[in-house]
């Protein structure tokens, strides 16, 4: 050692932080960027054919719902997984999405559909559920929140207001979910905790979006190192 004293924890940590300056070669980064274009397409990716099938399905749903009347739709709105009218509720959601084109409206609609999942979590949590339904609903809730945020990105002119609306909607979900969590057995709390976290992340993202896309998380990085 060239130092006159043995390095302490602070010296070692400082040295480790300095070592974080190691970075890949520019040529390698360029190589990686170009190799991304040649990544294979996977089965999970929705093809244009599937998108077309989805549109046709949505259209058929709209026709069916028009024929069956608003009474069925209204009755289905309060249904939960396992109820006979629950598929109608899901079909209505798909149809609404299919006919909603503007990103601001879709951002809010996705947040409201997420709210449906939060309400269903509330209804299912009071029944004799084995946890599987709660887990599925929680997963769907998270997906809807993510898609709401994605739509928010496209809502350039009205991102401020829409971001605010989405945040407020997600706050309501969080309150609902937190209330539900207090009444369910410990064994079934995990999916609810996950949904609460998804709601909180969504709120943070929506707030960031309404502040012109200010990105969180970077400033914390250096502090975490210490």
């Amino acid at each position, binding site marked *: 050692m060239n*130092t006159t004293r043995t390095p302490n924890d602070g010296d070692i940590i400082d040295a*480790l932080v300095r070592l974080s300056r190691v970075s*890949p070669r520019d040529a390698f980064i360029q190589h990686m960027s170009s190799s991304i274009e040649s990544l294979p397409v996977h089965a999970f990716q929705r093809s244009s054919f599937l998108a077309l099938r989805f549109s046709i399905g949505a259209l058929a749903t709209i026709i069916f719902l028009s024929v069956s009347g608003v009474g069925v739709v209204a009755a289905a709105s309060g249904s939960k997984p396992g109820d006979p009218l629950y598929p109608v509720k899901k079909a209505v959601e798909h149809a609404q999405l299919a006919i909603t084109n503007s990103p601001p409206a879709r951002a809010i609609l996705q947040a409201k559909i997420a709210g449906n999942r939060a309400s269903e979590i509330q209804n299912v949590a009071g029944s004799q559920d084995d946890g599987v339904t709660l887990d599925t609903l929680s997963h769907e809730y998270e997906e809807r929140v993510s898609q709401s945020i994605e739509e928010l990105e496209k809502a350039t002119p009205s991102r401020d207001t829409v971001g605010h609306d989405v945040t407020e909607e997600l706050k309501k979900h969080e309150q609902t979910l937190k209330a539900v969590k207090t009444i369910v057995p410990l064994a079934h709390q995990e999916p609810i905790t996950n949904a609460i976290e998804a709601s909180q992340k969504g709120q943070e993202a929506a707030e960031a979006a309404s502040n012109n896309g200010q990105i969180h998380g970077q400033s914390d990085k250096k502090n975490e190192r210490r």
Partner: protein
Amino acid sequence: MSSWLDIVLIAKAKRGDRDAFGKLYISYLPGIYRYIFFRVGQRQEDAEDLSQTTLIRAWEAIGNYSIRKASFRAWLYTIAHNVVIDHYRERNRHATAQLTATIADEMSGGASPEEELVTNDVTEEVRMALEKVSNEHKQVVILRHMEGLSYTEIAQITGKREDAMRALHHRALLALKQVLQHT
């Protein structure tokens, strides 16, 4: 916690948008590369190969990624962690001997980007000391101090408990100090 931009890109990538996935991965590439570089004995060629393997595996698995289970950053490091483990399984027979030799070569060789950063003796000593502590000690200090990950994220990556990671981090610093004392 994933940023707003990340959440948007993740949603797109999950639906097969390669450009979105590319932007995400490239933004994390320096950290992923660095983590792998220090895990594989500071060998640039291996770090580049394994960074590319991590890219492919992440793309294959992005459809199953869920933000509720881990941050995207922690998820990527988990894949890199598994890629490194697989790499060592394949090369287990000569890993240790080659590792020591490579460090010596790099220290005496030309100016690679990694060597240019060596601006002070303690940094250099710590860099060398990293290769003399156990893999789990090395991993926890790299993730914590070079990559700035939280103990929660480190626990997610390693599949261990958060309090165990705090204890391991303490022991890792102690181990590094002991190596430095005997240098």
